[in-house]
């Protein structure tokens, strides 16, 4: 994966109002988290930064998640850990970055790139993708842009599992079940499947929770039979 540079500046003001002002000025609040190992427990240092909204959008649009973040005279290698967007998913509101060590493997999620047309799809089946990103562990320099998945040999009712994927050298699965389903080719939908809607009958009413059903209510309301003497 290529490393891109993101130029930032430290921001002194915190809080939602300050962030709003920042966004109106064409910048995005960025938090850079760095874990420091001392004598005691690991400390997490947070650098509050601001970056140009245009630069951040450009980086995210090209799936560049490995960044060299320049801030306050220093540079750190970082990955994008979380991106907050607005309700429509257009504008980026906030980005969380995590500083990484180039010499240690990191956990990362990589896109799966599906290549070729499955044999089953050519004969009328439907490709059902169950997994689009794969959790891997690798050195930052060995993280691929995407992991290629060849579909050519998949026939109808055949499955491809995580364990069957070919991973690039230096990349291993991280917290992924090897039996997890990646993709399968389903038979073409039948007319009945296409026509099937909800299994509700016309004019029916849903059951009201806590309310006795009509026959139970009627039974409760009916006078009790006289006791035998």
């Amino acid at each position, binding site marked *: 994966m290529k490393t891109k540079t993101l130029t930032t500046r430290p921001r002194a003001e915190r809080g939602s109002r300050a962030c709003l002002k920042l966004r109106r000025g064409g910048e995005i609040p960025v938090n850079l988290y760095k874990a420091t190992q001392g004598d005691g427990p690991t400390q997490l240092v947070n650098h509050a930064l601001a970056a140009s909204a245009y630069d951040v959008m450009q980086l995210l649009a090209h799936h560049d998640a490995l960044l060299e973040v320049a801030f306050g005279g220093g540079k750190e290698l970082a990955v994008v850990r979380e991106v907050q967007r607005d309700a429509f998913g257009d504008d980026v509101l906030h980005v969380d970055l995590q500083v990484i060590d180039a010499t240690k493997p990191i956990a990362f999620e990589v896109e799966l790139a599906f290549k070729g047309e499955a044999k089953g799809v050519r004969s009328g089946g*439907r490709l059902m993708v169950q997994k689009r990103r794969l959790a891997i562990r690798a050195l930052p320099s060995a993280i691929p842009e995407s992991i290629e998945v060849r579909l050519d040999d998949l026939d109808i009712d055949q499955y491809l599992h995580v364990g069957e994927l070919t991973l690039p050298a230096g990349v291993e699965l991280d917290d992924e079940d090897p039996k997890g389903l990646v993709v399968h080719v389903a038979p073409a939908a039948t007319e009945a499947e296409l026509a099937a809607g909800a299994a509700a009958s016309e004019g029916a009413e849903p059951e009201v929770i806590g309310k006795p059903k009509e026959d139970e209510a009627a039974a409760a309301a009916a006078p009790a039979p006289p006791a035998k003497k």
Partner: protein
Amino acid sequence: MALMPKRVKHRKVMRGSVRGFAHRGNRVVFGDHGIQALEAGWISAQVIEAARITANRFLGGEGRLYIRLFPHKPLTSKPLEVRMGTGKGEPEYWAAEIRPGQVLYEIAGVPEEVAKRAFARVAHKLPLKVRYVPRRTQ
């Protein structure tokens, strides 16, 4: 058949008002392409079903359609020529409350052009302004 809940806590609910934006259900999750609401409003179960049939007929068995909305809200009405008063009307139909940003339908397994044409047909059925949204990685 139109969608409706199986069990509800109350037969009738107040109309309420749809405020704010969709902060959940506003991303394409299951498919590759989605159709996103740009306005707030109600979409009745009949409309959800009509849009589903339209999309499935256009896709003709290719790909897969996901419905991302469900009519949870019962809406009541009074019969014609009835005097005011005497309580709330009877449940007439079910509707989904939609906030701007909500993804309504998704399609997987077809090229973008096909999905866009299917969604154009779906959009004709819907009472809200909508737009096409692709799946986003981040």
